């Protein structure tokens, strides 16, 4: 019955729906508008699918997850594994280039050009201008140089366009081959070091690029632009400036990027701030009189130069004037521009400025595409300013939420910048939010897959644990420290030991047990690694005393005795002595466990170490334990019992 009723109900509903659709279709007798076809690119579907996936911070990065047993947890292993993967790729490339004849089969149709063996040119190759054009397009610098040479030998004339292309290629790369685009990991892990070495002259004087430039008689503005930009890019500033003046005399209108590159190296050309700024102004005026439109690069170059001009108020005023000037020109600053503004305003030794908050007002809630190479420096600098310059939690949070907006995370830069960013972020949060909130909301989420704390940050965390008396985090932190390979840092190990000893765990046996385990772990790891030559941590008396105390707090007399033995044996080699409280505690436990000989050895040790209160220990032992004759004798050798 029931079922039939339900069915009839549904039937009624269906009829109603039909009726409605009928009514509607008649009443809405309008022409059907087909939406226009939207042309889709080949990656649009993939991007749409990709946008549905969010990063799970508790999971390892995609590149590691193939092998769950080898998921890296420390910075060193992360790097090693990623680079090992890349090395595998390189090995494959090498095999293919060594044995090209094995890879001549065409499996797929239409063919995939990326898998074709690379064309190799040597001294005897027959080459044409088209080959040269192709390698220029593919950014193969050394091949381009070789083909150019071969063409010259053949006496073939190459067109002015190709020559210009070759000149630009060589100037851009300084005649060196660039890292294959394929090797993303290598780029991700290396960029930071490259920037450091870029601050000196590395332009190859008299190299092919210059030969080509000289071979062009009556060089065009484009040729001048290319060679000047190349020289400025690789810090051959004097000759770049010289060529610029030469071009100016000839009345050539250069490329706007050429002017930019010269502004950018003003700090190498001119020593004094005044001179530097006059130089910049001169070039800007030259741009204006040449009637060229400045671009974003011009803005960034000017801001870059201003950021090298000290901390005076004048520089800041000029920065604002520059921003205004380019705003009037309709040039929107990019993140890189804000980066320069930040480093101009927030110098380490200058007065404090909260320009960051005004910048954030300007850019908050927007998503960014990369427009300048320095864009990737913005986030790390902004977080640095929030932490070190202003110590402003609110700003730090705003910067972080901007980073997580849309695809802005792409602008984090590379692995080095990313971890510096998080270092600042963690330090800022640690100082400004309650420890519990920090651990729950930040630490458990981001560590270790997104960020691995450096020892300095770990120390800061331990600091906070100490201030808050939150010793319950120590087991977790210690296991992290082992994974992150911090366990061989003496200051951190001592820190942890002191924290555990000073925590009052009497009423929490669970914690005492864990602490005992940690202490024993420290003991064994140091003990086992003593033969290691490098990076080796050695015991100090204090450390051993702490370990012993923790073992005793856990009622593990046996382990405590082992530590005492170690102390006793290594009396001459171990630096420092344990605290007297530790020894006293040990004697107490000896009494409890009825182990007079161990107690006597401890008292011997205490007296050898120059603790005057060793006598008290002896007296205590004598009082609370009935000693036999031998023990009494040896005890009286150490301390004069009659004194008491």
């Amino acid at each position: 019955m029931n079922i039939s009723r339900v069915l009839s109900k549904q039937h009624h509903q269906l009829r109603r729906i039909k009726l409605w659709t009928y009514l509607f279709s008649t009443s809405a007798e309008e022409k059907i508008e087909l939406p226009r076809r939207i042309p889709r690119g080949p990656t649009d579907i993939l991007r749409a699918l990709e946008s549905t996936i969010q990063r799970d911070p508790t999971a390892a990065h995609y590149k590691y997850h193939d092998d769950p047993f080898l998921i890296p947890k420390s910075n060193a292993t992360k790097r090693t594994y990623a680079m090992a993967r890349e090395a595998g790729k390189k090995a494959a490339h090498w095999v293919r280039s060594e044995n090209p004849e094995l890879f001549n089969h065409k499996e797929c149709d239409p063919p995939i050009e990326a898998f074709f063996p690379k064309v190799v040119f040597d001294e005897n190759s027959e080459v044409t201008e088209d080959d040269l054009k192709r390698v220029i397009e593919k950014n193969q610098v050394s091949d381009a140089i070789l083909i150019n040479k071969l063409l010259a030998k053949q006496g073939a004339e190459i067109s002015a366009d190709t020559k210009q292309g070759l000149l630009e290629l060589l100037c851009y790369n300084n005649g060196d081959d660039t890292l294959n685009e394929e090797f993303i990991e290598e780029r991700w892990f290396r960029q930071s070091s490259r920037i450091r070495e870029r601050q000196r002259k590395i332009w190859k004087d008299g190299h092919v690029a210059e030969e080509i430039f000289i071979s062009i008689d009556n060089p065009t503005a484009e040729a001048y632009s290319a060679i000047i930009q190349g020289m400025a890019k690789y810090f051959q500033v004097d000759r770049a400036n010289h060529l610029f003046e030469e071009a100016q005399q000839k009345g050539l209108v250069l490329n706007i990027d050429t002017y930019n590159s010269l502004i950018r190296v003003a700090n190498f050309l001119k020593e004094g701030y005044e001179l530097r700024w006059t130089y910049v102004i001169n070039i800007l005026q030259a741009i204006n009189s040449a009637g060229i439109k400045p671009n974003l690069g011009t803005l960034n170059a000017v801001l870059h130069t201003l950021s090298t001009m000290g901390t005076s108020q004048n520089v800041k005023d000029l920065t604002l004037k520059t921003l205004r000037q380019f705003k009037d020109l309709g040039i929107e600053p990019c993140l890189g521009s804000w980066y320069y503004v930040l480093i101009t305003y927030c110098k380490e030794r200058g007065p404090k400025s909260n320009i960051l908050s005004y910048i954030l007002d300007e850019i908050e809630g927007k998503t960014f595409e990369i427009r300048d190479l320095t864009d990737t420096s913005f986030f790390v600098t902004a977080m640095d300013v929030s932490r070190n310059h202003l110590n402003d939690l609110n700003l730090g949070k705003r910067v972080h939420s901007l980073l997580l907006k849309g695809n802005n995370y792409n602008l984090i830069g590379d692995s080095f910048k990313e971890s510096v960013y998080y270092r600042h972020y963690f330090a800022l949060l640690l100082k400004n939010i309650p420890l519990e909130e920090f651990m729950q909301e930040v630490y458990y989420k981001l560590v270790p897959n997104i960020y691995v704390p450096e020892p300095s940050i770990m120390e800061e965390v331990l600091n906070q644990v100490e201030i808050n008396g939150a010793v319950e985090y120590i087991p977790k932190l210690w296991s992290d420290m082992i994974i992150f390979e911090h366990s061989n840092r003496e200051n951190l190990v001592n820190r942890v030991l002191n924290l555990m000893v000073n925590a009052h765990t009497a009423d929490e046996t669970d914690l005492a047990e864990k602490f005992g385990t940690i202490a024993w772990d420290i003991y064994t790891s140091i003990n086992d690694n003593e033969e290691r030559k490098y990076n080796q941590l050695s015991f100090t008396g204090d450390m051993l005393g702490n370990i012993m105390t923790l073992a005793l707090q856990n009622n593990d007399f046996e382990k405590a005795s082992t530590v005492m033995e170690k102390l006793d044996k290594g009396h001459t080699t171990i630096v420092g002595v344990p605290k007297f409280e530790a020894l006293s505690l040990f004697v107490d436990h000896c009494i409890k466990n009825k182990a007079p000989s161990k107690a006597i050895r401890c008292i011997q040790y205490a007296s050898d170490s120059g603790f005057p209160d060793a006598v008290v220990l002896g007296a205590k032992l004598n009082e609370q334990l009935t000693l036999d004759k031998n023990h009494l004798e040896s005890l009286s050798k150490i301390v004069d019992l009659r004194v008491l």
Partner: protein
Amino acid sequence: MNITQVILRKLPSSQSTFLRINLTCSKTIFCQKSTNNPPSSSSSSSSESSSDSDEIAQKKKASKEQMAEKLNNLLQQMVSDDYTKRLDLAKPSNKRIKSRKPEEKVESEEKQVLNAVKDVAQSIEGDSKKIESELLTKLLNPLDSERSATTLSDIIKGMKIEREVKQPEVNRAEQVRRVLQNISTQTQVPQKDHRVAPREKFRPRPVEDVVFEKIDLFGSESLGIFNDNSKLEDGPQLKTWSELAKKDLKLAVTHPPANYFQEMILWTEQGKIWKFPINNEIGLDEEAKVYFADHVFLEEHLEPWCPPKGPIRHFMELVCTGLSKNPYITVETKKEHIYWYRDYFGDKETLLRDVGAIPQDFSMGTSNVVDKE
């Protein structure tokens, strides 16, 4: 106080703090004194600069000698106080350091003060010597001269002048040295005034207290170099360079892929996999430009030359049908095929006409062309 600040800035920081402390010290001592000793006309006059020393001397003489005595007593008392307090301070640690250090310090400090003052005086226009002396007096006597009391240093100065009326003007350096010596001995007295101590503490202000200036990022005036935007044009472009720069920018944001879709996007962009959406015409880029009708309807290529009827027409229509069904050759090849027949039949046009394959009144355009040539 402004001028003293200028001078302070000229000094290295450690020195300037020393001086600043000195200044505040002398102020406090002045306070103490003023409570002990009611202000008198003579002492106020003695605070004036040393250039009108004669005048002061006369005034002094006119005033009662009691005053001088009073001051003398007071000084005596202070010196003895000073002495005992210094004894309190003495540390038993290192005798050599104790005996040598303060003197050296004073020596270098006063030199630096002098140099700094000289620098300032020279940097200001006008009579540099005069300014220098003014600065020195200002520095050594930081109180307003209107106030009806005086510091210890002024009293000493006044006393000396009284005794040595005929002596020429005292060397400025000498003055400074003496005054500094006095000040430095005073600073050795520990601060007992509790009103001053907290002020000292507050000097390095915490960050939170700093009032930030308001910054309007785009509110400033312009540099004023580019005034007419409309006149400006794009300059010459470097094709290869800008391509390379673009590639570098892209690489700067190409990070290791974080999921499989990202990896596929990357591979697609590197050209390692076929493009999405997958269809069976992938990679036929050239062919995609040709409309299908061009492949299928080939009769239009017959119209200019082919006879409208007869066996040749029949044959050619069959050729077109065959070609239209062939998916493996391009439209160009199909056309070439047809044109080959055109030329072939064109060569044999007369023969074909004789045979009757071509109607008598029809002439193939091609042969005409050939003939004309």
